[in-house]
């Protein structure tokens, strides 16, 4: 049974901020099969295509039959905890300052034994549910939790190192004028965030759903325009030190590709808002978030981007927009690397066309803004790095993996 975490007290500005440290980061190349699984919240192990046996840790040949055909596949996540220990004097700084730290050896029902981090409610001889999580180094680690839900499960100290749970954290949603931004703010507040700052450009102009945000307890509207460098700098100076989760909901959607447009003015707007806005945000909020990665219960933990799935595969009907999203996706990988020393997760949420005015002519299925907001919360709670929301996004993920050329041809309709 896990004790609930207590709400953080007001920070004493005279005390030194604890700086982030990273758990051991080195991994073999093959082991990054687990990184991919963890990023998407899947439990995958290597299985031999020749003899069918699962193996762990990552290998280059099957220890049963020496076949090299070891493939990462979704694996049954159930196992039994054989033995546990509590490391009290680890040799590495990250664990040393978090000791005592509990680990165990789990016999998986599908065969291998796995050394694993343990949720406090796991007991020897009892079944556990295994998952791969991204630790503060951004690397995959095995984490065993009790098979069934237990009280305050997400408050477990070791689990909270792996997740980015909004509970007690302070969130900044960059654009509350969009339906996605509004739904994200409400969902994060409902998920236990202490406060949600919601950026509103030109706040004197009314916007849809304003009454749901303005004056609500724990929701604070702030004057903000990501495309404006001065605006981002001003707001960061004001609230930058208390943003634990940043949700970048900046959106600028315009239909059209290349040849039917004249000049670069629309493309420039797309780049200004989406790409340069992202740069402004990152430069204003990134450094202090990275510095605050180990700052107590409400340390900074995550940066979320809502991106079109067409960042991964250009959709000519929205061709220039797709390109602006691809630029943001590429930049997000740069930001992920630069935030990594702070242990900050960067999660990209990929969506298909959203049910908003700018996709008015696009046939269904379209994604409801609320579904995106719920995915953001679920992804933060699960500590994920990649999410695909809605049928279109999931289908494109699969088609891209199956045959990128077929997808390219078929998006040209």
């Amino acid at each position, binding site marked *: 049974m896990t004790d609930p975490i207590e709400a953080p007290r007001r920070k004493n500005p005279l005390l030194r901020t604890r700086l982030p440290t990273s*758990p*051991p*980061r*080195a*991994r*073999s190349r093959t*082991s990054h099969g687990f990184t991919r699984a963890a990023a998407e919240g899947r439990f995958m192990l290597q299985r031999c295509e020749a003899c069918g046996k699962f193996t*762990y*840790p*990552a290998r280059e040949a099957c*220890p049963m039959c020496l076949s090299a055909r070891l493939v990462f596949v979704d694996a049954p996540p159930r196992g039994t905890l*054989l*033995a*546990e*220990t*509590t*490391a*009290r*004097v*680890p*040799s*590495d700084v*990250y*664990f*040393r300052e978090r*000791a005592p*730290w*509990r*680990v*165990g*050896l789990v*016999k998986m029902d599908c065969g291998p*034994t*796995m*050394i*694993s*981090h343990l949720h406090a409610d796991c007991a020897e001889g009892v079944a556990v549910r295994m998952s791969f999580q991204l*630790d503060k*180094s951004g*690397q995959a*680690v*095995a984490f065993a939790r009790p098979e069934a839900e237990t009280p305050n499960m997400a408050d477990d100290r070791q689990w909270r190192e792996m997740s980015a749970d909004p509970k007690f954290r302070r969130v900044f949603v960059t654009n509350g004028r969009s339906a996605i931004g509004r739904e994200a703010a409400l969902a994060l507040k409902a998920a236990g965030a202490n406060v949600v700052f919601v950026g509103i450009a030109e706040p004197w102009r009314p916007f849809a759903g304003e009454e749901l945000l303005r004056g609500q307890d724990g929701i604070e509207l702030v004057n903000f325009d990501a495309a404006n460098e001065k605006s981002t700098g001003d707001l960061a100076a004001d609230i930058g030190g208390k943003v634990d989760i940043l949700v970048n909901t900046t959106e600028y959607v315009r239909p059209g590709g290349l040849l039917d447009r004249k000049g670069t003015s629309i493309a420039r707007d797309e780049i200004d808002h989406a790409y340069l806005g992202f740069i402004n945000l990152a430069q204003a909020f990134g450094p202090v978030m990275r510095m605050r990665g180990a700052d107590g219960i409400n340390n900074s933990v995550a940066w979320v981007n809502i991106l079109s799935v067409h960042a991964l595969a250009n959709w000519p009907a929205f061709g220039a927009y797709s390109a602006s999203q691809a630029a943001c996706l590429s930049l997000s990988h740069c930001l992920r690397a630069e935030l990594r020393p702070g242990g900050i997760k960067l999660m990209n949420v990929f969506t298909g066309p959203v049910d908003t005015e700018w996709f008015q002519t696009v046939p269904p299925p379209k994604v409801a803004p609320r579904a995106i907001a719920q995915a953001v919360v679920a992804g933060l709670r699960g500590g994920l790095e990649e999410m695909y929301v809605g049928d279109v996004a999931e289908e494109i993920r699969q088609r891209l993996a199956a045959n990128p050329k077929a997808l390219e041809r078929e998006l040209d309709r």
Partner: protein
Amino acid sequence: MTISLRTPYDGIVMAAPVTIPYVRYSIDSAQWWIGRALSAIVAQAGIRVSDIDGLCVSSFTLGADSGIGLTQHFGLCVRWLDTIPLGGASAIAALRKAARAVQARDADIVVCVAGDTNHVDSFRSTLENFSRFNQDAVYPYGAGGANSSFALIARNYMRRFGVTREDVGRIAVAQRSNALRNPHALMKTPLTLEQYLAARPISDPIHLFDCVMPCAGAEAFLVMREDTAASLRLPAAKLLSTIERHNAFADDPMQVRGGWAMDIGELYAMAGIRPDALDVVQTYDDYPIITMMQFEDLGFCSKGEGAAFVRQHDLTVGGDFPHNTSGGQLSVGQAGAAGAYLGLVEGLRQVLGMAGPTQVADANLCLASGFGMINYDRGLASGAAILAGPSR
């Protein structure tokens, strides 16, 4: 009774046991420590450096060097060379290889040497870079190092066989008593069972006195044929038997036995003795629980009876089962790969009657074992050797 089909080690001997006294931290390199051991062994054996025509080296802290770099470093011209990275099983493996080399006359005088330095940060960096499985699937989990890995093994073993911390503690306490006779042991104060039990936990159920102290040091011995030793007028011990095994019992979900259990019949059959004929036993004691496991796997008692065996015997130098007479790694210190040699070199001193303050009276038959490389969830390498003094 097992019948051994292996070629006997007829006329193969070990000589010139050398220990360079350990220090907790050293600013010198592993090369320096190995150099001291080579210098000492040449002096002790009364040979010239040019007489050495075989070299076998083990170390964790040589950096980019292996045995070949050391030949030029130390001015050795050898015709047989090996580098053995088997951790706690390195000494037994080195002895086995060297014995066959001199038996086949591929070499005449082989130096087997292990040495490691211990800078302030060496231990952590050894843990971090131990093996690929360790890097991928062990070290990122709490970075408890070998302590945590052996804690899991110990916890399972203790629960399964009803072993208490008192049982395990007897081994550590007896070894400390032996160490107090050894002027080179790093641990110089007595240890009581009460102190053992009251020690702070490191990685449950491993507590402070279950752990070895990392240090710097070096150990070495010579392997040659009996006629070579005679011409050099060197006191020498006969090699009767050896075993070596890696990745044994891979299907055991957790380690409750080492590879010895697979080869034990062969070990005694080749030596032509029974376990109760041994005068002194040197086990690999990275943790006392592993020593208890070896009492079972090396045939002194049955599986699960290690605790009772420990309760029923006096493991000190003057006791009925003299064991780890120098104090073992638990009380002398673990000088990296030299830890593998500590028991074998002490055993060699014992059967040659050269052990001085730790000498067991009339020690003639000795068993020394090795255990090493906790690559993932268990120690993979095991080995053992039986030596006999000159009078046998």
